[in-house]
């Protein structure tokens, strides 16, 4: 009875974690759609009132949709493009609301001297929405990661450490080669550095700047930005190395279904589910890290080379075209400004990184305090024979046969 209750509790816990990860992804996608739906594609509805009142201004500051009629009508009478160019000269722009209102509604076409793909964009409405969405991502991410930590703590309290039930045999089986472990630790250490510096970037201004002071914050942030940008290459290298070495071991197999149905035996003492070198849970982590890692790397590259590698405009166009083939209309905005593309890349980068951090929390837990005897696999490259038999029985049998065959093989004789 106790085991059955534990099993159901385990399944409920897994469902909850899955729902949490999905909710984070869906919330992020929703945010991106809203962000991508620029005013250019869907103009704000204008009401009949032409007046600009204090209420209008306050409502606009609250993010509500307010008529732009009055602002559009009062653009100044004696402002020529030449005059505008004069005001935006090298001495800096004068604080002239008529001028900026004209720029805001594309009534003049100013000449700008800065070179680059965003040179003509002086005011971008979507920037404020991006800032709001970024704050939303930060808040939801903190809730999500806090939830994962709480769930793991709860699991540890209810289940305790997964003990080696048959005890340590003292006989060790090689589990991972030196190159596999170097690749794993390269990926892991770079991910931890990227995670810490990325979280600093996301939460610094929100939560840390008041704690350590603005000067210290600026110094640390400049350093974390350099670490984040440059360690990214090590992460990409680690991702490729791990993928190449382990992809064959992580293809789905029949045993995975049984493993998943029984929750890997993690939720019930005395239950051991047969598994190959990697069980279904590890395969899920592998594919999540591969797919999410690729996604976070691509958006990271887009951010690393500002305006040079727009990614979302192409993806949206592809999704719209693919939807058209099956008669659907995704209606994603196309022709994004370069800076809009980077804003979307930043949001997506943050959301995916948050989901990855949550997944890796669980991975670190089960590889360290969560399961007895597990860490030595990556620590020393070897595991106890009983650990292998309990958690990866099919792989253990193959290894023991291979080791036995090697021991039985007589040493090679030199050729006369």
């Amino acid at each position, binding site marked *: 009875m106790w085991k059955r209750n534990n099993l159901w509790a385990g399944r409920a816990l897994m469902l909850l974690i899955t729902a949490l990860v999905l909710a984070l992804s869906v919330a992020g996608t929703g945010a991106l759609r809203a962000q991508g739906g620029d005013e250019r594609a869907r103009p704000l509805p204008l009401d009949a009132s032409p007046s600009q009142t204090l209420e209008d201004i306050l409502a606009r500051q609250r993010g509500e949709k307010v008529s732009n009629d009055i602002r559009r009508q009062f653009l100044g009478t004696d402002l020529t493009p030449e005059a505008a160019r004069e005001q935006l000269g*090298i001495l800096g722009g004068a604080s002239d609301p008529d001028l900026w209102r004209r720029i805001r509604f594309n009534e003049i076409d100013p000449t700008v*001297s*800065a070179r680059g793909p965003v040179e003509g964009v002086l005011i971008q409405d979507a920037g404020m929405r991006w800032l709001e969405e970024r704050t939303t991502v930060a808040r939801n991410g903190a809730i999500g990661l806090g939830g994962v930590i709480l769930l793991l703590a709860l699991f540890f309290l209810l289940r305790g450490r997964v003990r080696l039930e048959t005890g340590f045999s003292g006989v060790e089986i090689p589990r991972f080669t*030196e190159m596999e*472990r*170097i*690749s*794993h*630790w*390269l990926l*892991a*250490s*770079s991910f931890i*550095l990227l995670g810490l510096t990325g979280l600093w970037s996301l939460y610094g201004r929100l939560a840390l700047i008041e704690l350590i002071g603005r000067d210290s914050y600026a110094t640390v942030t400049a350093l974390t*930005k*350099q*670490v984040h*940008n*440059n*360690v*990214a*290459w*090590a992460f990409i*290298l*680690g991702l490729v190395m791990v993928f190449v070495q382990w992809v064959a071991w992580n293809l789905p197999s029949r045993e995975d279904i049984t493993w998943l149905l029984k929750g890997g035996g993690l939720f019930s003492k005395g239950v051991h589910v047969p598994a190959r070198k990697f069980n279904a849970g590890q395969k899920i982590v592998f594919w999540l890290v591969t797919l999410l890692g690729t996604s976070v790397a691509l958006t990271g590259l887009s*951010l*690393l*080379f*500002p305006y*040079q590698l727009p990614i979302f405009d192409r993806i949206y166009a592809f999704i719209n075209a693919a939807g058209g083939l099956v008669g659907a209309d995704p209606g994603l905005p196309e022709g994004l400004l370069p800076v809009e593309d980077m804003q979307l890349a930043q949001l997506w980068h943050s959301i995916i990184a948050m989901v990855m951090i949550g997944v890796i929390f669980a991975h670190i837990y089960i590889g360290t305090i969560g399961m007895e005897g597990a860490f030595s696999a990556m*620590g020393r*490259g070897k595991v106890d024979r009983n650990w292998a038999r309990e958690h990866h029985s099919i792989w253990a049998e193959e290894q023991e046969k291979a080791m036995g065959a090697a021991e039985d093989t007589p040493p090679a004789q030199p050729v006369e």
Partner: protein
Amino acid sequence: MRAFVTSLIVLAVVAVGGNLILRSLPFSSADVRISEDVRLDE
């Protein structure tokens, strides 16, 4: 332990090497010198 230390060395080499390559490019947010090349009056 040896694998972990080796991975840290690889990480440092790749990060520094990547930075040197990035700094030689005319664009990228990893290149802090970019601000020196911008003149607003041109």
